[in-house]
């Protein structure tokens, strides 16, 4: 099998091949490392490569699998982590000069779970600095590029996760999402990412941006792969005060159940036309996706988008207040260590009052009730994942994100599970994503709908030319 064929297998396919002895964990790992060597010079996905560790883990996985010690679907599969997941003794930079040489002394709970499942760590991935602001063009590490067109942004903040998956440099990744940071790069890079319900996955050992909005979650090249990864990292963690003690179902069990009779809510009115509105090409691709869903037997229900539109103000207010509170001492002592984009946005939090923050948290109560009320009318919601195609780096307007609706941040405010799945391309062969949002702790429903759509289309099988 050629390097590119091997590197673009899904986790589910690679896992089956390992057990059929078609290849070994060492071959998978070497294929990824070779491909990283070939292409990462122009994509800048990796901040830190853990080559020696990866080879050691691959040898161990090979030995274990040969001797019948099977740890499950992720055993022997090379993965990579957004560089805000704390890794014991391995540099964790958050793509910032502030932490450029930081070596954590413990692993994030999710990292421990991946290790216990036998995953192989290839390295740590580039991101937006501290998961905020725009592409980090003035950080000590270069900004990640979009494999579909390196002149364009890959979306953030989990940029390296999206780009490395699209380029076939790893099989799975963990991102984090405070306002869309898993779903936006998934959309812009043509891969799948799920922000689970708040509390479903431990945040312990994930460097915070905004405690009450941060979510950890998986990204991969297929819906099934995201289900595999979420199965491993989900579950109650006493070390995370927001962790939910809720049973974790088998996320792959209902993947093939179809969507006949499912009611899909489309909150178009009073939201999609906010400010400049959705980009026409993005909306065109989205409307085609809705037709496919109808052909699969779902019923579309147009619902009022006003509460979703209002969510942005509360989300942004909470985010900058909590982010500034976390970094306050660093801003007082050495503000120059932060890049321009993150500094400009985080410092807004220094000028908001306690009453501003509490007003946003009160609005959160109201909007949470209104948005969850939607599920008395429909089973799931559908929106574009991002309001526009990926911008070119050159001439990028930092205020652009405020000029169009945000389809992602209402679901950080409400904590609802939301998945992005590839749904087509806009001009210039740039990917677009379709987002499904389910009721709390119903990730299985989101996976079922996303899987039905994915299997009915060919978008997820497209690969960028590098």
């Amino acid at each position: 099998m050629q390097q590119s064929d091997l590197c673009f297998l899904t986790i589910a396919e690679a896992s089956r091949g390992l057990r059929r002895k078609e290849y070994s964990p060492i071959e998978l790992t070497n294929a990824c490392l070779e491909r990283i060597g070939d292409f990462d010079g122009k994509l800048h996905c990796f901040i830190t490569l853990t080559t020696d560790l990866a080879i050691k883990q691959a040898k161990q996985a090979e030995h274990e699998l040969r001797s019948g010690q099977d740890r499950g679907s992720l055993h022997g599969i090379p993965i990579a982590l957004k560089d805000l997941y704390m890794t014991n003794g391995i540099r964790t930079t958050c793509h910032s000069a502030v932490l450029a040489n930081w070596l954590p002394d413990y692993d994030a709970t999710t990292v421990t779970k991946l290790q216990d499942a036998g995953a192989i760590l290839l390295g740590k991935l580039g991101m937006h600095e501290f998961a905020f602001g725009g592409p980090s063009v003035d950080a000590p590490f270069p900004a990640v590029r979009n494999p579909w067109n390196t002149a364009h942004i890959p979306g953030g903040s989990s940029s390296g996760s999206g780009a490395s998956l699209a380029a076939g440099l790893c099989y799975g990744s963990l991102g984090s999402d405070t306002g869309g940071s898993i779903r936006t790069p998934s959309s812009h890079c043509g891969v799948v990412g799920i922000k689970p319900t708040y509390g479903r996955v431990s945040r312990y050992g994930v460097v915070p941006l905004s405690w009450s909005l941060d979510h950890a979650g998986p990204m991969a090249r297929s819906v099934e792969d995201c289900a595999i990864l979420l199965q491993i990292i989900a579950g109650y963690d006493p070390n995370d005060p927001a962790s939910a003690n809720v049973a974790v179902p088998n996320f792959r069990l209902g993947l093939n159940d179809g969507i006949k009779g499912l009611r899909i809510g489309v909150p178009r009115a009073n939201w999609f036309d906010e400010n400049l509105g959705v980009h026409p090409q993005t909306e065109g691709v989205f409307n085609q996706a809705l037709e496919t869903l109808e052909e699969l037997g779902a019923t579309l229900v147009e619902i009022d988008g006003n509460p979703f539109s209002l969510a942005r103000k509360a989300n942004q207010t909470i985010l900058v207040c909590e982010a500034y509170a976390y970094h306050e001492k660093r801003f007082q002592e050495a503000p120059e260590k932060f890049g321009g984009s993150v500094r400009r946005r985080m410092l807004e939090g220094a000028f908001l009052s306690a009453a501003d923050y509490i007003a946003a948290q009160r609005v959160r109560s109201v909007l949470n009730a209104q948005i969850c009320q939607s599920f008395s009318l429909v089973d799931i919601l559908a929106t574009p994942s991002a309001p526009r195609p990926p911008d070119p780096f050159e001439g990028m307007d930092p205020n652009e994100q405020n000029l169009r609706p945000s389809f992602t941040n209402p679901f950080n405010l409400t904590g609802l599970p939301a998945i992005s799945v590839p749904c087509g391309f806009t001009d210039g062969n740039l990917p677009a994503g379709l987002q499904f949002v389910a009721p709390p702790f119903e990730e299985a429903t989101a996976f079922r709908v996303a899987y039905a759509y994915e299997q009915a289309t060919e978008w997820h099988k497209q690969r960028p030319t590098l």
Partner: protein
Amino acid sequence: MEREITLDNLRTTAQRAGLELSDDELQRLLPGVIRAKKQAGELRALVSLDTEPAGMFNASRVTRK
């Protein structure tokens, strides 16, 4: 009523917060702060007096660790 945000009162607020920021930097921050304050002001219109914030303290959670 919210008072107008100017470079001068931004400088004063920054100093009170222990931040040493140049006038150039404060000037760059000003539009974002004005937008953020306006946005936060608009939030007040969306809640009634009896609405409590999300994430209220819950004593039962203190013993969870």
